């Protein structure tokens, strides 16, 4: 491992104190003169058409200042989502918004509005929509085929079998591909696992709801909001409002969680912006918990059938999967097509086939949620891997090793030439080996089946792999006459700390202390460069690249300035500790402050008056605005790439299952990883365990419950949809983690992201541990609550089939 000054060292992120003292201002903490408050009127039915709206009583109320309806919004093409609608497609979808002098008045006004609605046919379970004669969630179709809305019904399918909980695989699909020969692979297998599987839909539930406040000054819209990204959200929000990006100032310095639901989060931002325009006053739209539950996005559920062929030695010969995705009413989520990406990678099957279709439902809109498709893949497949391992007499960790991706392993859908893509690096076997030593896996395994009264111990292990980086963005920093390095970050401050962590790459390039750095983020008026979306666990890999590039550019310019002023060639100079100095003669050099002043004097490319041509126009704009403030480091990330960046985590869980009550207690969780070079060990631990906990939630508790007669959800509250709490986390000993710190070859520091990889490891390991405790506890569906467990133990007739959605 390289000898880094900052990389891999623990430190306190810059906003920590602000957060723990409450000084951090989130969107709803802002105020503006004459500010109004907005409230939403939401659809009471899953699908309906607004026949008429009578706002007269509301408008007559003192303090009511403006009402915004769908007719006031820029048009959106189907199957897109406008934000307000006259044809709501899910319960809780906003129909109109009222701005009033305070929230109580706005709420009372909403109650005084009469909306006459015609109920329309609806579907909350995708299978209901595929059934012959089944109603569709949308009037214009129930799916997309070849990017066109289409109406697909499964006429020649054995629906009685589906009703029994056996997915049939002869229905029409929208996506289909094969690599290798799956039929042959299954034929040559010594063991074929063939199961119907189900993964629930689940809301994102960030603690901070998607609140926004907007006002207009001199034709510009100022928007305080909650979003994961910044620079990328800016464009999306401007488009939504219907204005040019230069007419929008977006402020989002803090974000109380997004999990993919606020990558842009821009759908609802237009409401306060346009209401403010209409009312001529600032408008704050605070989103309540129940509103967030509906408009706050969700992970698509999956219903499917999986066949996996194993050789006697554990090697997977074939994977054949068929999935129906619960797509919500708008857009097109990609989770179901990501599932086979993950399975081709994690298990490296010798052949693989995927067939799938996403079906629209009248349930909340979907968006990526931490490891979209990846979590579902691990939750559904890892118990099947363990089942096969048991049948073949193989240690489940060994099973992971046997099929593990290594090096630049292949993955995903083949291109037109039949070639699959590859990853930049995979050290899964090494992660397994590390766990074997660090966690004493064999001792854990030995506890499997141990009885303590009515409680039985189970242990489980699961491999999770997911996206962890991209490339090609821009880095931008200035070293100013005050001697500080101002690092401009166009990514957002999602709460992971990566907005600071990646800034350390620039300081690493300058080998200068972190306290000499100032990170600029979260406000598009502060000249931020072109950046990746703060999503997909991309930031650590992508923006250590960009910031290292900017740092290297600044270092080169420092060296050139020093050589110009002090003689010699630039390569005779080194940069460290806030100075550029002659190698071997540390006293001969310039401080950053001196160099900054020289850069301004020199102008041109030194202070940003001349810019590289390959940077994005957004970065050019930002750099131009900063030109002349000091020495500018600005560069596009042109470092070599070696394939899709994927990190890997192996989760180990130990549970106790009470065989009389079905209660599951999570006793221990450990996770071993391949995440490249560790950038910030504290941030890494938080992601590994936070992701793991979110995985426990998916495995054990979180869900939606719908009454199908009405298409309405009855689990709107935390205590009914049950995300986990901190007391659901193992607390007898701290959860352990281990990282190999093995660099990815395609990042200047070897960094890879981790946030999403972590979740599946938690979910898969817990599900495998429960299965292990029960001996044969394979349920093939999540969440695995005690009613399912007790029903199995007591051999009671099941209340619903494996394929039943939203119970």
């Amino acid at each position, binding site marked *: 491992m390289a000898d880094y000054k900052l990389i891999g060292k623990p430190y306190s992120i810059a906003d920590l104190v602000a957060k723990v003292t409450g000084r951090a201002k989130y969107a709803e903490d802002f105020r503006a003169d004459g500010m109004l408050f907005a409230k939403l009127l939401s659809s*009471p*039915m899953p699908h*309906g058409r607004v026949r008429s709206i009578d706002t007269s009583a509301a408008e007559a109320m003192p303090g009511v200042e403006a009402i915004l309806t769908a007719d006031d919004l820029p048009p959106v093409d189907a199957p897109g989502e406008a934000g307000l609608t006259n044809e709501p497609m899910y319960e809780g979808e906003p129909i109109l918004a009222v701005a009033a002098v305070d929230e109580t008045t706005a709420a009372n006004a909403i109650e005084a509005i009469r909306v006459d*609605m015609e*109920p329309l046919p609806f579907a909350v379970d995708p299978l209901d929509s595929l059934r012959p004669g089944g109603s569709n969630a949308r009037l214009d179709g129930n799916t997309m085929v070849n990017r066109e809305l289409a109406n697909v019904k499964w006429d020649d399918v054995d629906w009685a079998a589906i009703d029994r909980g056996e997915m049939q695989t002869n229905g029409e699909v929208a996506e289909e591909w094969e690599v290798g020969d799956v039929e042959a692979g299954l034929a040559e297998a010594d063991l074929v696992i063939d199961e119907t599987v189900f993964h629930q839909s689940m809301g994102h539930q960030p603690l901070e709801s998607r609140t926004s406040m907007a006002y207009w000054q001199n034709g510009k819209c100022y928007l305080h909001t909650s979003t994961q990204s910044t620079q990328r959200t800016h464009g999306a929000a401007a488009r939504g409002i219907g204005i040019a990006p230069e007419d929008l100032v977006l402020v989002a310095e803090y974000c109380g969680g997004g999990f993919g639901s606020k990558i842009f989060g821009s759908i609802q931002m237009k409401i306060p912006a346009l209401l403010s325009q209409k009312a001529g006053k600032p408008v704050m739209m605070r989103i309540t918990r129940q509103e967030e539950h509906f408009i706050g996005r969700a992970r698509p559920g999956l219903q499917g059938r999986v066949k996996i062929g194993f050789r006697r030695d554990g090697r997977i010969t074939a994977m054949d999967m068929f999935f129906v995705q619960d797509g919500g009413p708008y857009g097109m989520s990609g989770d179901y097509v990501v599932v086979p990406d993950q399975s081709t990678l994690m298990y490296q099957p010798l052949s693989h086939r995927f067939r799938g279709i996403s079906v629209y439902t009248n349930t909340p809109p979907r968006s990526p949620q931490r490891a979209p498709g990846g979590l579902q893949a691990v939750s559904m497949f890892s118990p099947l891997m363990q089942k096969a391992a048991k049948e073949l007499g193989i240690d489940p960790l060994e099973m992971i090793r046997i099929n593990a991706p290594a090096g630049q392993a292949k993955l995903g859908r083949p291109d037109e030439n039949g070639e699959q893509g590859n990853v930049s690096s995979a050290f899964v076997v090494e992660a397994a080996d590390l766990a074997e030593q660090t966690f004493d896996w064999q001792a854990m395994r030995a506890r499997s089946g141990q009885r303590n009264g009515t409680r039985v111990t189970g242990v489980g292990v699961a491999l999770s792999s997911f996206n962890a980086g991209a490339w090609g963005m821009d880095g931008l920093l200035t070293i100013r006459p005050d001697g500080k390095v101002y690092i401009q970050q166009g990514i957002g401050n999602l709460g992971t700390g990566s907005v600071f962590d990646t800034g350390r790459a620039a300081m690493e390039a300058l080998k200068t202390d972190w306290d000499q750095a100032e990170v600029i983020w979260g406000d598009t008026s502060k000249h931020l460069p072109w950046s990746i979306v703060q999503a997909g666990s991309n930031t650590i890999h992508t923006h250590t690249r960009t910031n290292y590039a900017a740092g290297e550019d600044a270092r080169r310019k420092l060296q050139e300035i020093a050589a110009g002023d002090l003689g010699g060639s630039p390569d005779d100079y080194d940069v460290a500790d806030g100075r550029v100095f002659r190698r071997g003669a540390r006293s001969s050099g310039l401080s950053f402050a001196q160099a900054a002043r020289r850069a301004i004097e020199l102008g041109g490319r030194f202070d940003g008056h001349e810019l590289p041509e390959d940077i994005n126009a957004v970065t050019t704009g930002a750099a131009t605005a900063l030109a002349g403030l000091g020495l500018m480091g600005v560069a596009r990330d042109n470092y070599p790439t070696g394939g899709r960046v994927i990190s890997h985590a192996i989760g180990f869980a130990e549970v106790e299952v009470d065989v009389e009550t079905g209660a599951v207690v999570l006793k221990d969780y450990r996770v071993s990883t391949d995440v490249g070079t560790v950038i910030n060990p504290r941030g890494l631990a938080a992601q590994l365990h936070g992701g793991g906990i979110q995985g426990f939630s998916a495995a054990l508790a979180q869900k939606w419950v719908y*009454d199908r*007669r*009405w298409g*309405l959800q009855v689990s709107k509250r935390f205590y009914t949809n049950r995300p986990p709490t901190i007391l659901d986390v193992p607390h007898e000993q701290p959860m352990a983690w281990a990282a190999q710190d093995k660099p990815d070859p395609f990042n200047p520091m070897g960094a890879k992201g981790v946030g999403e990889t972590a979740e599946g490891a938690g979910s898969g390991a817990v599900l495998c541990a429960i299965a292990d405790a029960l001996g044969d506890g394979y349920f093939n569906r999540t969440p695995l609550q005690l009613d399912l467990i007790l029903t199995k133990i007591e051999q009671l007739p099941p209340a619903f089939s494996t394929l039943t959605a939203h119970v």
Partner: protein
Amino acid sequence: MELFQWGSNPWGQETLVRISWDLLYLAFWAGIAFILFHIAYAVVWLPRLARASASAGADAGGSATDVPARIVRHTSAARFFHWVMAAAMIALLITGFFPIVGIQFPWVTIHWISGVLLTISILYHIVHATFFLDFWSIWILPADLQEAWQRVRHQMGQETPAIRKHGKYPLDHKLYHLAVTVAGLAVIGTGLVMMLRIDGALWPRNPYFLSDATWGLMYVLHGLGSVLFVTLTLTHIYFAIRPEKLWITKSMIFGYVDRDRYLEHHDPQRWVVPRDSTEG
């Protein structure tokens, strides 16, 4: 005062829930008002009527010797029906309305069992009355209306043709029976459907068997029939204990009326009593 209770279904659409319980109080007080009115009427008018009939009572013929001493007015089967029905009805009214006025107890099971009992007794009555009794004797016929008009005119002191005595059932009995029939069919018909809403042993509970609107109508009809029964029951009991009507009440207990009463109130040509019709 409200006539109906409105609510909304889960989609926020307004639906009819049931009658307003204001109507229960209205029905009760209507019954009481009627009774008070009738008491006043009885005090003022009955003595005059008695004098009038003494002077002008038309003898429609029929001699005392043709008539047995006791005439069967209600067979034992009919009486059994009446009292079973009465018991069921009282139980239904108590279980239905006491909780609404604040006297609370577990009522649902008694209510539906009473309802089933009432239904069975009514079915029995229909068959019995249709095939074993003089079916038409209880129904209002056009002649009854004409006659009623004459009686009213007569009571108002106007010139009328001679007023005939009644057949087996006078018009007020027929009217009462008609009201009970209408209200009874309403509560029984709706009540039976409402059994789908409770946990029946014989069928799965299905509140979605009918649409919201139809259910609302069911509850309204059930409620209207029920509160009508409050009025009907009050007035029925009132008449049953009026001194001049006690002989009728007795006949519902013992089955017969005396020859004198028969001849005094009924026209033997209209209520033909076979000679062997004595009982017991």
